[in-house]
Structures are given as C-alpha cells and as structure tokens.
C-alpha cells in the first residue's frame, strides 16, 4: 500500500511484526506448556518454556478432581439449548425484519446498539428478582432464558442480513408456480438460509459458552456451575502444582470458540462479522 519501502523500512517492519508475534503468541505458548507439564516441573525453581517430560495427566486430573467434566457438560447443555432456542425464536422475526419495513423492526435493531451502553449491574438485579419470582433462579433454564435474550438482538441483525441476501425473485417465482407461503419458506428460504442459521447458532452457542457474569450471579449450586465459573473458582485454589490442571481445563474451554473462529475465518477477515463476538 505504501509503495516500495526502503531496505531499513522493511527491516523495521519485520522488527515490529516480531514484537507483535511475541506479545500475542508467548502467553499462548505458556498456557500450552503449563498444561502439559508434570507437577515436578511446575514447582521447579526456574520453569522452562518447553516441558521436558510432557504429560496429559493434567487433563485427566482437571476432569476427575475438579469436576470440570461436570461443569463442561453443564456448559454444553446450556449453550446447546441457547443456540437452538435463539435460532427458533429469531428465525421468524428476522424474516419479517428483512422483508418488511416496520417501525417495530427499526426500534428492535436500535436496541442492539443501545443495550451495549448499559452495564450488567443494572440488568442483573431485576433479572435475578424476576427469575426468583418464577422459580427459575439457580437453574439452567433461567440461565438459558437470559442467554437467548442476550444473544437475540445480534442474532436478529445477523440473520436478517442473510435473509436479505436471498433474492426475493426466487420466492416470487415459487409463489407463481403455485407454492403456498409456507412451502415457499420451507422449500426456498430455509435451504438457502442454512449457512446463516448455522452461523447464528454458533454465535449464540459461543456467547453462552464464554459467558461469566450472569452464570456467576444466577447459579449458586456448585454442581450446576458452568465451565467459566468452575474455572474461576479453581483459580482460588492455591498451590503451584495446581496450575497444570487449571491450564488444561482452560485449554479445553477455549476449543469450541477456536473451532467457531476457524469456521468463521473467511467472514471475519472480510470484516462483516467483525463486531460479532465480545466476551
């Protein structure tokens, strides 16, 4: 973009890039290395970057001793339910938003931006009180409900974009051929919408999987805790040898979103989903 830089210019660019690679990469390498270190290497006075006797013991331990396995299952359950529900609820509305201009639609989309402004403290207390009233405090169902609502504005925004990319002519052609409104949706719109549905479901899954604040406040029973909460409680347990299982659990907790991002890589680099996920 800047034409041909001078030789020193190029060199400086590589120095800067190396700096970025170190800053971004080394903490990740450290997490990986800690996860595979046996306890003896974790407590040694001067830790090494590469474990000399790598082991998967930490992963086993994370699951057996710290109940991270149960927490992971809880997270999986909550995230899957949130993903499915979000799509089911968002699908009709996004179709309406994409195809018809209503004031309600504009307001709904405006809420996306506005809701970003408000800190969770303002929401959490009334939500906590509402859920307690209907007996959903301290349950996964209550958490799922919150996650669906939390994911909905963006899911709507995203999904209606996908609907808009389906040419209206296709629908009209099917209608002319005698297909009923429902058949048009089933035969024409939904198949073409599949990538959008997958993307929306994934987005909703990941935001539920990564969410911490609501899970921390709304679910009190340790057996019901989701993975981020279980990991955060794990941090409180002292002892350097404990760092191994902690790192192992953290790595596993990252896997779903890594897969999501790998899946979305192309879209991400084009910037169209650039604001999609924020922890």
């Amino acid at each position, binding site marked *: 973009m800047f*034409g041909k830089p001078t030789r020193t*210019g190029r060199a400086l660019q590589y120095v800067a890039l190396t700096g*970025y*690679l170190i800053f971004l990469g080394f*903490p*990740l390498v*450290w997490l990986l290395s*800690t996860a595979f270190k046996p306890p003896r290497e974790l*407590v040694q*006075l*001067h830790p090494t970057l590469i474990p000399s006797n790598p082991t998967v013991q930490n992963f086993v331990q994370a699951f057996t001793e710290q109940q991270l396995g149960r927490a992971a299952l809880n997270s999986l359950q909550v995230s899957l339910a949130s993903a499915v529900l979000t799509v089911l*609820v968002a699908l*009709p*509305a996004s*179709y*309406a*938003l994409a195809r*018809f*201009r*209503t004031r309600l*639609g504009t307001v*709904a989309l405006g*809420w*996306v931006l506005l809701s970003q*402004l408000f800190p969770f*403290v*303002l*929401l959490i*207390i*009334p*939500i906590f009180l*509402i859920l307690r009233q209907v007996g959903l405090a301290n349950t996964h169902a209550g958490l799922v*409900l919150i996650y669906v*609502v*939390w994911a*909905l504005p*963006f899911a709507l*925004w995203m999904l209606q974009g996908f609907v808009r990319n389906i040419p209206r002519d296709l629908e009209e052609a099917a209608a002319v051929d005698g297909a009923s409104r429902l058949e048009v949706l089933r035969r024409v719109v939904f198949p073409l919408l599949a990538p959008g549905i997958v993307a929306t479901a994934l987005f909703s899954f990941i935001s539920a*999987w*990564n969410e*911490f604040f609501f899970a921390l*406040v709304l679910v009190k029973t340790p057996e019901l805790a989701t993975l*981020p909460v279980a*990991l*955060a409680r794990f*941090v409180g347990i002292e002892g*350097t040898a404990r760092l191994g299982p*902690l790192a192992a659990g*953290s790595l596993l907790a*990252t896997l779903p*979103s890594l897969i*999501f*991002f790998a899946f979305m*890589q192309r879209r*991400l*680099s084009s*910037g169209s989903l650039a*604001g999609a996920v*924020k*922890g």
Partner: protein
Amino acid sequence: MTTLAERPDVARSDGPRVARSRSDRLGIYLLLLPSLLPIVVLSVFPLVRGIYLGFTDARAGRHVEISFTGLANYRELLGDELFWNSFKIGLLWAVGVTVLQFLLALGLALLLNQQLRFRGLARVLAVVPWAMPPVVVGILWKLVYHPDAGLLNEFFHRVGADALRTNWLGDFSTALPAVILVGVWAGMPQTTVVLLAGLQGVPRELHEAAAVDGASTWHRFRNVTLPAITPVIVAITSLDFIWNFNSFGLVYVLTAGGPGGKTMLPMLFAYEEAFRYGNYGYAAALGNVMVVIIVALLAVYLRRRLREAN
C-alpha cells in the same frame, strides 16, 4: 455485538418493503412476537426497573420493603471515597486500555496490510485471544504473571535482570498496569480486524495519486489513509471504550479488585455492593452513574470528531 461493516446487499430491490394490507401487518407482528416478547420481558423491563432501583433503598432479602429515596443514593455516592477511588481506576483502565488497544491495533493492521512474510501466522495469532473466554484470558495471564512459575519473571531471570522480578498482580504499583496490559491483549484482535477491514477499503488510486505527487510515506498515511478510515476508528474506539468500561470477568479472575482495591473497577465495585453486601439500590445507582458518564464522555468524543471532520 454490533456489525460495523454493513454487509453489502446483493440487490437493493430486495430491501425491506412497507407492509400494505392490515392482515400483512398482523402477520409481521406475529412473526416478530416470539423475539420481541422475551426482549421486552427480560431486557427492556429489567433495565427500566434497574434504573428505577437506583432511586430506591432496595436491599437483598425476600420480603424487604422497597421505598423511593430520590437522590439519597447519589448523595451517598458523592461522599463515598471507595466509589471515587473505583471510579478513577475505572477511567484509567477504560481510557488506558482503549487508547493502547487502538494504537497497537492500528500498527498491527498496517503491518498486516503489507506483503510481509509470516503475515498468515500473525493473522491467526491476532484472532486467537478474541476466541478465548474472558475467564480463560484471565487464567492465562495469571500464569504469565505468576511470581514463581510465571513466564515473565523467568524471562527477567534469564536475561539477568532479577531485580525486575516481582509479584506483578500482587504489588500495589504494578497491579493496575499489569491488568491494563491484559485488557489490551484481550481486546486488540477485534480492533485489529476492524481496522484492517477499514484499511482494505481505502481506494488504491488515492495512494497512487499521492505517490505520484511525491508525498512521503508519513504524509500519505496522515493525509490519505487516516482520513479514509476515520469513521471506522471512531466507531471501534467508541465501542471499545464502552466494552472496557463495563468489563468484569477478566479483572475478576486476575485480581478480584485487589491488591488493596488497586484494580477495583466500577463493575467489580457494584458487584460487591450488590451481591456481597446486598445493597441493590446503591449498586443500581452506581450503574446509573456509569451510564451517564459513558454517555457524557462519548458525546464529548464524538462531537470533537465531528467538528474535526467538518
């Protein structure tokens, strides 16, 4: 959770239409209902109620009477030294993280926009922190900062600078900068991706024309690139600021507000007030103050940008 770059519509004629008949409109509302109902019940209503709670003496407990107290909470906040302290830290954190995040992300985006080797690796690495749950980012950096088993202290030992070894998250003077660095690391990827998308939208011809005119690299950056991506910059820095000011999980895991309240962000402070001491009304008042401050700061920032643009 906002799409910054609008996806281009394939055909404008496929855009939304105004519903004509009455039955059409009814159908639309039926389609919207399953989405709008939960949003109203569990998002709009709680928000309004939360704002209201900020003007009451609500406390934890099942059968506590709530009474309207007007501005009493805010008068108390004004005299609350812990609040002022937390507020100052919150500003330092939000402004510090947002500015550093932006500068570093801009640098990286400019580099990634060049034909450099290892660009692919950098692109992947630049996205990974974004994919991590905030709790995991916190744990990851706890490992890096760990006084005995940490990467950072070991690095200083290896280069013979043992004097620099310290308990990064436990020391009064280093805790806040250490936490800010983590915030930058965690938020930089998203900002980089957005800025890169902005840079790739700058028309090549503009640069070529400027180059023909003999403009230096710096001049071209200052007069061609920067003006072209200003809207993107304003959007992402505003969002980053909001997100940073409202962030919670990262610092909760790293320091839980310690040592001695040195990293007690407003969100952590409000969380403690609400769920440790049960002062719902007071915590909600704090939330209200945060919204007002964010809006005020954004208004000043956006107005200045607008004036510069004119």
